[in-house]
């Protein structure tokens, strides 16, 4: 399937989009570009660390809300469009820790409504959390009934550990994205996915999602998957569409395939820092004026640069 087909079929206005990748590693840049190209808006973007792809979606004016543990590109600075939109009051945010976000996806993938964690306790990440009195069944306190109000669907609650009354425990609600977009190393045509190297929050998030669209560096035969089934990170039952897109994470890295490109990351960051006009100009040149992702790769990097990034990675693994 092409990126255009996969995105138009599975990403809808108002969708909750699970974002793969972390910082400068394996961000789903090609798939996010396609969402921007099709201008699919009113999105809620969720993930652990959200970086360049989320920032470009925000810069394109397509995001209403983010739910995440952090937004930044570390040494390359913060996610400037995201920061500006929050400070301007045009973007809603729900803040979590990274473990708390993974725990939300873990509940989602396990088919349970919530999951406990001991993170967030005492912090202002819980400030908005409802304090839930132990219910009869949960806390074991005879005579108590469940609280009359329903907690906010995206916020944690604190309960007493039913097995150790007096010990506070945080419950985080299951998070099931409408669609997750993830760039991976290898997949077969039916959607068996092999992620090599670090996998961040992606396995939990993908299995929690109603649909998953992956882009991959290489399409492999189903026989190859079946020859090494222990290497399958996520089986096809969770995956809705596979798009073949070499360098689909550029300018971020893909482990075993290519390193990140500090020059282009910095170029995007300069535009993002520069304000709404500069971001629009960047997106016009690199997304809207590029009919295909390969046109962007040619414009932003060129074959020689891409090969150099490939060699830089091969030297490291």
């Amino acid at each position, binding site marked *: 399937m092409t990126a255009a087909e996969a995105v138009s079929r599975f990403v809808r206005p108002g969708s909750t989009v699970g974002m793969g*990748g*972390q*910082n*400068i*590693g394996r961000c789903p840049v090609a798939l996010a570009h396609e969402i921007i190209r099709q201008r699919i808006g009113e999105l809620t973007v969720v993930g*652990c*660390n959200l970086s360049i792809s989320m920032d470009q979606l925000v810069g394109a004016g397509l995001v209403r809300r983010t739910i*995440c*543990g*952090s*937004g*930044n*590109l*570390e*040494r*390359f600075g*913060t*996610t400037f469009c*995201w*920061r500006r939109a*929050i*400070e301007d009051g045009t973007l809603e945010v729900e*803040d*979590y*820790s*990274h*473990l*708390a976000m*993974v*725990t939300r996806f*873990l509940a989602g993938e396990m088919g349970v409504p919530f999951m406990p*964690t*001991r*993170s*967030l*306790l*005492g*912090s*202002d*990440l819980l400030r908005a959390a409802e304090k839930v009195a132990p219910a009869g069944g949960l806390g074991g306190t005879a005579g108590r009934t469940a609280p009359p109000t329903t907690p906010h669907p995206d916020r944690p609650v*604190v309960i007493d550990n039913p097995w150790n009354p007096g010990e*506070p*425990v945080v419950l985080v609600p299951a998070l099931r994205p409408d669609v997750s977009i993830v760039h991976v190393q290898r997949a077969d045509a039916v959607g068996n996915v092999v992620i*090599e*190297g*670090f*996998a*961040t*929050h*992606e*396995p*939990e998030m993908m299995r929690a999602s109603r649909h998953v669209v992956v882009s991959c560096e290489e399409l492999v035969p189903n026989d190859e998957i079946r020859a090494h089934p222990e290497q399958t990170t996520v089986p096809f039952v969770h995956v809705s569409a596979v798009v073949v897109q070499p360098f689909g994470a550029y300018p*971020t*890295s893909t*482990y075993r395939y290519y*390193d*990140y490109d500090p020059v282009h990351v910095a170029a995007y960051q300069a535009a993002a820092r520069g304000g709404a006009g500069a971001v629009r100009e960047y997106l016009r040149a690199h997304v809207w004026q590029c009919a295909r992702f390969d046109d962007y790769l040619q414009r932003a990097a060129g074959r020689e640069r891409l090969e150099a990034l490939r060699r830089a*990675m091969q030297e*490291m*693994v």
Partner: protein
Amino acid sequence: MIEAARHVRDGDVVFVGTGLPLLAATLAQRTHAPNVVCVIESGVIAPRVRPTPVSVSDPKVMYRAVRLGTLREVLGCLLQRGLVDLGFLGGAQIDRYGNINSTVIHSPGGMKRLPGSGGGNDMASHCRRLLVITRHERRRFPERCDYITSPGFLDGPGARERAGLSGDFGITVVTDLAVLENDPETCALRIAQLMPGITVDAVRAQTGFAPGVAPGVREVAPPAPEVLGVLRDEVDPDRVYLREDESVSAARR
């Protein structure tokens, strides 16, 4: 950086945050703590970090790791599970009780949004010792953080336990002026060591609260030449971090 590395003990399982902590942990590994086990939140376990990483997802961080796994494995199965000795963070805002704000700063001019918790809240919640490396500026050391992203001692003695966190916790803050540690009685940060040539008054002038002074406060030992050599030649030979920080501390003096 060199002083921060000294607080990493040989054999420690260290949960390493991005930026200077990655560098200092690498320095420790290449000098006095060869058996340190670095854990990085993107899912990396026990790597031999190559110079000079700029991100927790930088492939240089993954070099010769024993496992490249998931966030849940390292933040959940190691950190929350209680298997990490030391959490090592770069700081944004840190207050009297060692609470850290990396989410939002409110000022008369409006709000300034910061990156958020990342794994910071998880580290401060579940590590037995927390090591923070940051520049010593008054705005970074307020009396009370605008927003507590990562819990230190919250309101003081007993507050962590009341919140449901382990009270078996200590915090060390290494800056370009001093080393601060929590007072075991009051839980407030106090001056434990001074950088060479820096006075208590100079530290207090750059701190938004009035830190106490630990008994027997002394000067930080100067770096051994061979350690400095490892830092300059092996850990950050391209001067991704060092030049900037050296010039900052030089300008101060």
